[in-house]
């Protein structure tokens, strides 16, 4: 891997940028590996990277049915924050946020992490109580989160409409200043490049069609469109398609898959200095560096693998956006799309071992997985390498649905998280 630096950039600029080589190897599968990761999204690639970089497991394949970072990694609204309610959630999301802060440096790849602040609006007394509860919990855990009055909220985001006559007036907001956004594609590319340089094989266009188990029940490898690939350890990191893959190993999951939509406007000059979220009227908005307003809508009410979503879901969100930010009313929307998110009953992820020896799973990130990409990959890599859960991952075991030790961020975060 050729390291990026000012010197290499200058050199290439003088040579007309003719010397850049592909940043990772598009590998063909070998017959066997020490570990296979199913799914080359952000979480899967991060897992492979940390396996190679920190756990000494370099003979790793990442198997992907489509192309690298082409699923939910390419479809989300890139919001990063760690202001969750429960201690278990605070631990993993804050672990992730700390990794984000140094990620560009660690990967030698600009992930464009921008801590511009995430502001969550309160529109009702209930919202205000819930957000303040989060703020107090977060501050006890050493995570920054602060309460803003409507006026302070408007100072932080000048185009916010704080007119008390609104149908859902802004009563205040919780602000996490270290929250923000990052460039979603760059995260997948950066992890792929760094993992590939450490010897990880990234195998695209290679759908897994089966998970082979031996007579003792343990995993032996995966059947793919390009033949059988053996490995004593397989990690499934397949987001919305996790249920389908785990069924191949005979494991039923506490998951349901829903389409989640997002849309972007035509690009305009900078108007939105931060991320604004409203769970109550379901609107998330930020502005990309290209100038597009990036808007997150809700999930459809029914399970689906269609990667579309109903138009009425997106228009509900646009109504809320137009009310909160009247200045954007005349913008046209350029594109809308859907991703398939795997939702758990308690809206917390599942990370760890499964009833099948050698089979590991990292899923259930639901509507909020992007922010967790580095932390999720990090603790999952350690879990696979050691065969036992990383301390931060341990509370998120699959077994919690049997023991009843749920981590209920569903009630904590209303619709989404």
């Amino acid at each position, binding site marked *: 891997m050729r390291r990026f630096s000012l010197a290499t950039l200058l050199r290439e600029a003088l040579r007309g940028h003719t010397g850049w080589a592909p940043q990772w190897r598009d590998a063909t599968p070998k017959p066997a590996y020490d570990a296979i990761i199913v799914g080359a999204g952000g979480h899967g690639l991060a897992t492979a990277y940390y396996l190679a970089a920190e756990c000494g497991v370099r003979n790793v394949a990442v198997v992907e049915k489509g192309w690298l970072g082409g699923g939910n990694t390419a479809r989300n609204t890139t919001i990063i924050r760690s202001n969750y309610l429960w201690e278990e959630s605070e631990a993993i999301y804050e672990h992730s946020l700390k990794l984000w802060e140094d990620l560009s440096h660690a990967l030698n790849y600009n992930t464009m992490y921008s801590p511009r602040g995430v502001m969550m609006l309160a529109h009702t007394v209930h919202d205000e109580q819930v957000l303040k509860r989060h703020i107090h919990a977060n501050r006890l855990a050493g995570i920054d989160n602060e309460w803003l009055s409507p006026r302070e909220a408007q100072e932080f985001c000048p185009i916010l409409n704080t007119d008390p006559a609104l149908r859902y007036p802004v009563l205040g907001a919780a602000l996490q200043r270290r929250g923000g956004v990052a460039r979603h594609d760059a995260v997948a590319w950066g992890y792929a490049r760094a993992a590939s340089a450490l010897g990880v094989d990234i195998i695209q266009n290679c759908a897994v069609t089966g998970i082979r188990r031996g007579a003792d029940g343990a995993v032996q490898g995966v059947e793919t469109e390009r033949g059988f690939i053996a490995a004593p350890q397989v990690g499934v990191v397949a987001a919305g398609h996790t249920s389908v893959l785990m069924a191949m190993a005979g494991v039923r999951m506490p998951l*349901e898959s829903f389409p989640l939509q997002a849309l972007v406007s035509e690009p305009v000059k900078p108007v939105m200095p931060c991320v604004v979220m409203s769970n109550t009227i379901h609107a998330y908005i930020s502005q990309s560096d290209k100038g597009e307003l990036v808007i997150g809508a809700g999930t459809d009410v029914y399970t689906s693998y269609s990667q579309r979503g109903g138009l009425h879901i997106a228009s509900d969100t646009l109504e809320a956006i137009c009310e909160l930010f009247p200045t954007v009313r005349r913008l046209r929307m350029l594109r809308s799309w859907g991703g398939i998110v795997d939702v758990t009953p308690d809206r917390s992820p599942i990370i760890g071992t499964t009833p099948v020896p050698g089979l590991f799973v990292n899923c259930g990130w639901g509507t909020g997985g992007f922010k967790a990409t580095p932390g999720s990959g990090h603790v999952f890599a350690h879990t696979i390498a050691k065969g036992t859960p990383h301390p931060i991952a341990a509370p998120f075991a699959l077994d919690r*649905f049997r023991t009843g030790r749920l981590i209920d961020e569903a009630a904590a975060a209303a619709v989404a998280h």
Partner: protein
Amino acid sequence: MLIIRCPYCEANRPEPEFRHAGAAHIVRPLDPSATTDAEWAEFLYHRDNPRGTVAERWRHIHGCGRFFNALRDTVSDRILSTYPAGQGRPE
């Protein structure tokens, strides 16, 4: 947006008239005190979540108010049939 046929009203209606009510044909354990934690987890949380045909409950909340079941393809979102609650899953 889905167009859903309510089997009681015998009318095609737009999706916002209905509320989705999760997977169909899930039977609550008959003897709670004799049910193990694993069986409760199966009943409460574990779902087929199929990529293909799913049987699911809907409620015609802004119509007759009654629950019914639907078979739907989760890739195309096409509803294959709707049928009254209590009736077995059609082939």
